[in-house]
């Protein structure tokens, strides 16, 4: 994937120095003025890329946590031609571990934009949405007070063998949406896009099934497109979103896997 001409303007920011962005603006900015746009993808195994490399349709009752970092950060690096660091830690919970790791990753680093998606393991521990919200707000405060931009992502909706977690991750995703708006940081609404792309979630070909928690190869492709859209300020939930992202990434028609919600009038 190559970035389209239309979006080359975002790289003009490399020449214009630091800037702060709000939601739906491009977050591909050289905030610290070092001549490189550095993105850090922060999260758990779904950021690390566990389950990547498995094709849709493969019977996967469980996913091994092994191999080198991959997943959506690697795809982002290739599609946007940016420096993208994979800071995913398999098994990590945001409240118990991740929020305490944030300063280690952010403070003093050259990162310009942090993408945070974490909470699936918190849902296993049934951490409350209130504790989750306080952790996300902590992370936002640390990142922004360090002069960085931020995208926060909702949680991919667990299904099949992990469907019991869905009510909890839904509460976390509601928190993420509220805090993104409140703090005017970027939002990647992975949960909403996952649902609109996979109306029959239990048969969703973006997941390793029946494991139902970690994306497969196609799922990580889709996740990378969602994150690219959030970074470029493309609203993938709008009807024109996929075409806009295809233009931005230089993809052929239909190259964007993610589908926006069908308007009620067309249902």
């Amino acid at each position, binding site marked *: 994937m190559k970035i389209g001409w239309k979006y080359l303007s975002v790289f003009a920011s490399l020449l214009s120095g630091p800037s*702060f962005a709000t939601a739906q603006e491009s977050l591909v900015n050289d905030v610290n003025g070092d001549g490189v746009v550095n993105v850090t993808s922060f999260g758990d195994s779904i950021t690390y890329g566990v389950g990547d490399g498995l094709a849709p349709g493969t019977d996967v009752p469980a996913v091994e946590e092994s191999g080198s970092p991959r997943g959506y950060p690697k795809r982002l690096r290739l599609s946007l031609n940016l420096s993208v660091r994979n800071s995913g830690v398999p098994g990590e919970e945001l*409240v118990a571990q991740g929020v*305490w790791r944030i*300063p280690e990753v952010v403070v003093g680093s050259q990162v310009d934009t942090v993408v945070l998606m974490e909470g699936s393991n918190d849902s296993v521990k049934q951490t409350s949405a209130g*504790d989750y919200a*306080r952790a996300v*707000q902590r992370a936002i*405060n640390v990142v922004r007070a360090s*002069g960085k931009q931020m995208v926060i992502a909702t949680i991919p909706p667990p299904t099949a063998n992990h469907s019991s977690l869905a009510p909890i991750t839904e509460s976390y995703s509601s928190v993420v949406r509220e805090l993104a708006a409140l703090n*005017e940081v970027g939002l990647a609404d992975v949960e909403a896009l996952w649902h609109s792309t996979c109306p029959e979630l239990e048969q969703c070909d973006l997941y390793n099934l029946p494991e139902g928690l970690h994306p497969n190869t196609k799922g990580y492709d889709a996740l990378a497109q969602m994150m690219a859209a959030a970074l470029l300020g493309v609203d993938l939930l709008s009807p024109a979103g996929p075409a806009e992202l295809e233009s931005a990434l230089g993809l052929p028609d239909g190259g964007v896997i993610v589908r926006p919600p069908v308007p009620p009038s067309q249902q």
Partner: protein
Amino acid sequence: MQLPVVRSVAFLVGAFSLVACGGGGGGGSTESSSATGVRVLHAAIDAAPVDVVVTGSPAPVARRAVFALDNRYHALPSGAINLQLTRTATPATVIGSFPVTADSESKFSILLYGDNSTFGLRTTLLADETPSQSSSAHVRVVDGVTGAAAIVVNFSADSGGEGVEVAFGQAGEYLPVAAGPVKIRASRAADARAIASSSVTLEPGRAYTYLVAGEVDYFVKGVLLADN
């Protein structure tokens, strides 16, 4: 929120923010700023952005003050008014309430400190009575950092001068400091553990607030704010 058992690394944010009145601090309120009025010193590590509302007014006077960044004053109506600090977009969530009498020269800071888990969110109203003009600069310390009952802040060219001690949630007096390049070093009073440091240049005749925000052993930021 579950606290970590051991945090071996304290993160000191040496980079500082210095934004004069009316300047853009990034990510803060969208209202026009003023030389007088009210501002928020947001030092609470896990608190969402906040607004300042004058009771009876339809819209906030200051919107979306964020942690360790927003510092601008926003004009207030004259007379006896009640200032409320509320969670942004949630006006029913009143964090603090302060009856004040304001005029065109009044300057107030509302310090938001503590946290949502251990200490609770707390607020203090500060009257920003800046000293009269002089050849030196004046700096006061505002301690909003959790994890220390008090902090000591040194202002000197070599950071070796006598420090000023300020208790949690309190503001010190404006003290004269020689204008020019200054190193600021903040430490926890109990054990002299360094928690923040900055290198700044103070201008003669200016008054400043040095806000220490965050949580010891997690993330602390020292922010130098121009008060006049």
